């Protein structure tokens, strides 16, 4: 990364606490523009909280967050958000197309109703995730993978510069996983930035350019080649790194022997639990 390259997201000294219990502790994060970044870490590491803090959904106790050099409050249309699939009620009486059009509500603002333009954008987004034939379908009739693709389409219609996704691969089938990866790469080729909370460590080197390894504190943040090392994962996961992930990290390490990990003073215990 050249140092003068524009940052999509810059997080400085972010601390978030729920009732004096720190969930994120003095976290710095730099996301270069136009990359796919994974946020990994054990349960309770604060991955979702980090995304929610960027979106201004949780109030930080300290720290500063800039999205393309500005605070999120100033211009919300730069960021699109894909929440966890399980966070909504899929029995809600509405159709796939309607859910996708919800992505346009921010641009529409108060009072204005979605019209033919919104419908067209929603159909285009559904086509990108290969869900066109489900447009009129009731959302309660979708499988988990289809639900995730609908959520992705809803983010696509926001036509944002930065996409924040909370576990987009959670519980989806192989077809959906491929479809999502394809969309992510397409977004990158258009210059957009994607930050995704990710669980399957073994796919990090394959899907992402950059990685943030997090466990309440920042363990490491940077290009996958440099920071996705077995040692960093061991620090984050407290010594119990899933076997295949360790193997994946070992492969990366073999390719790039140097490690520019940051925050090595952490003990290998899990401070989050």
């Amino acid at each position, binding site marked *: 990364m050249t140092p003068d390259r524009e940052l999509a997201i810059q997080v400085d000294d972010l601390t978030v606490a729920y009732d004096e219990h720190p969930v994120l502790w003095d976290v710095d994060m730099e996301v270069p523009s136009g990359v796919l970044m994974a946020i990994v870490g054990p349960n309770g590491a604060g991955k979702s909280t980090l995304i929610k803090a960027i979106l201004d959904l949780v109030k930080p106790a300290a720290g500063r967050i800039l999205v393309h050099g500005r605070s999120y409050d100033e211009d919300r249309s730069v960021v699109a*958000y894909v929440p966890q699939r399980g966070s909504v009620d899929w029995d809600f009486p*509405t159709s796939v197309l309607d859910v996708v059009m919800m992505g346009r509500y921010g641009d529409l603002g*108060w009072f204005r109703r979605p019209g033919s333009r919104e419908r067209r954008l929603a159909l285009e987004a559904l086509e990108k995730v290969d869900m066109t034939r489900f447009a009129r379908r009731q959302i309660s009739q979708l499988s988990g993978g289809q639900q995730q693709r609908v959520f992705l389409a809803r983010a696509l219609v926001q036509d944002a510069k930065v996409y924040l996704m909370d576990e987009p691969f959670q519980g989806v089938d192989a077809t959906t996983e491929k479809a999502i990866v394809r969309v992510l790469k397409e977004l990158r080729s258009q210059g957009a930035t994607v930050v995704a909370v990710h669980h399957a460590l073994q796919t990090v080197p394959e899907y992402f350019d950059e990685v943030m390894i997090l466990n309440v504190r920042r363990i490491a943040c940077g290009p996958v080649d440099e920071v996705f090392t077995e040692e960093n994962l061991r620090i984050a996961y407290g010594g119990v790194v899933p076997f295949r992930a360790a193997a994946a990290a070992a492969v990366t390490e073999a390719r790039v022997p140097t490690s520019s990990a940051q925050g090595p003073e952490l003990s290998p215990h899990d401070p989050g639990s």
Partner: protein
Amino acid sequence: MSTIELEIQLLAVVVAVACALPGVFLVLRRTALLSDAISHTVLLGIVLAFFAIGDLTSPLLILGAAAMGVVTVALVQVIEGTGLVREDAAIGLVFPALFSIAVILISLYAGDVHLDTDAVLLGELALAPFRRFVVGGRDLGPRGLWTMGGILLLNLLFLFAFFKELKLSTFDPGLAAALGLSPVLLHYAYMAVVSITAVGAFDSVGSILVVAFMIAPPAAAYLLSDRLPVVLLLSALIGAHCAISGYWLARWMDASIAGSMATMAGVDFLLAFLFAPGRGLVAQARRHLRQKTEFAVSMLAIHLLNHEGGPEEERECRVGHLPEHLLWSEEQVQRIVRDAERSDLLEVRSGGTLRLTEIGRERARRAMAI
């Protein structure tokens, strides 16, 4: 039908529709219990506003009630926010407390005023036509009709203006907040609307009927449609139906009007619960039965296919053998073989031997592939 009867029914329909519309979002947000709480705690708002103003007919009482509704929701959220008590318990703690304060205040200081607890619970629909709205000597109809008509109009305007915001903040509050559509502010505005509706309605029909009108028609409509605008429309229609049929039920039984309307709300919900296409119990049971029969027919076809052409075919593929092999009763075997035969899956030869047709073989192969 006399004018009075007509006016009672008209008022009841307006109240029912005014309650049934905002009730849809209460049901969708799984906060139906809040309507119960609000319809009681608004009494405290009225009492306090009455003490401040000293006039029971002042429209400012409605504002006091609306404020108390918002206070109720806020208190519930504060208690829930401590993490020590769940939402349902928090509602159960807040509303009896506020309601009982109102009851005590009435009995202490306002015993001679028209604010008795019977009227609060059951309302006085039958008396509503006798309270007239008179302007400059001209009789403009029952006062309740004007109040509730205004509230219905307010609800319609609110739902129309904030339809997309209400929909998004109900379905996905996280995204609504991220997009800057202030779901919390909208929630409180919505609760103020529910409170105003509750106070306007309970003056006419009492708090029990307010809750019945706010919950039963939306819950029934939710079972009948998968589209939000249709759910809203059906909810209003079902509410109106409860009002009119409840009135005639009361006439016929010579019983409480509010009680009969609440009963009809229950009956309408029960009908939807049982007979709603797709989601009703009957439709579910039929679907279950059909799947069971289809599965049994597939099982039979697979059994026949497995033994087709083998040396044991004569023994295995006979009607008489099936009860032992597939653990079905004689009647089940008869019924399923008949079903399969009627769908051209197999033919019954002399001596009770069963032989699959090409369609039957295809069915068996497909069933095994899954």
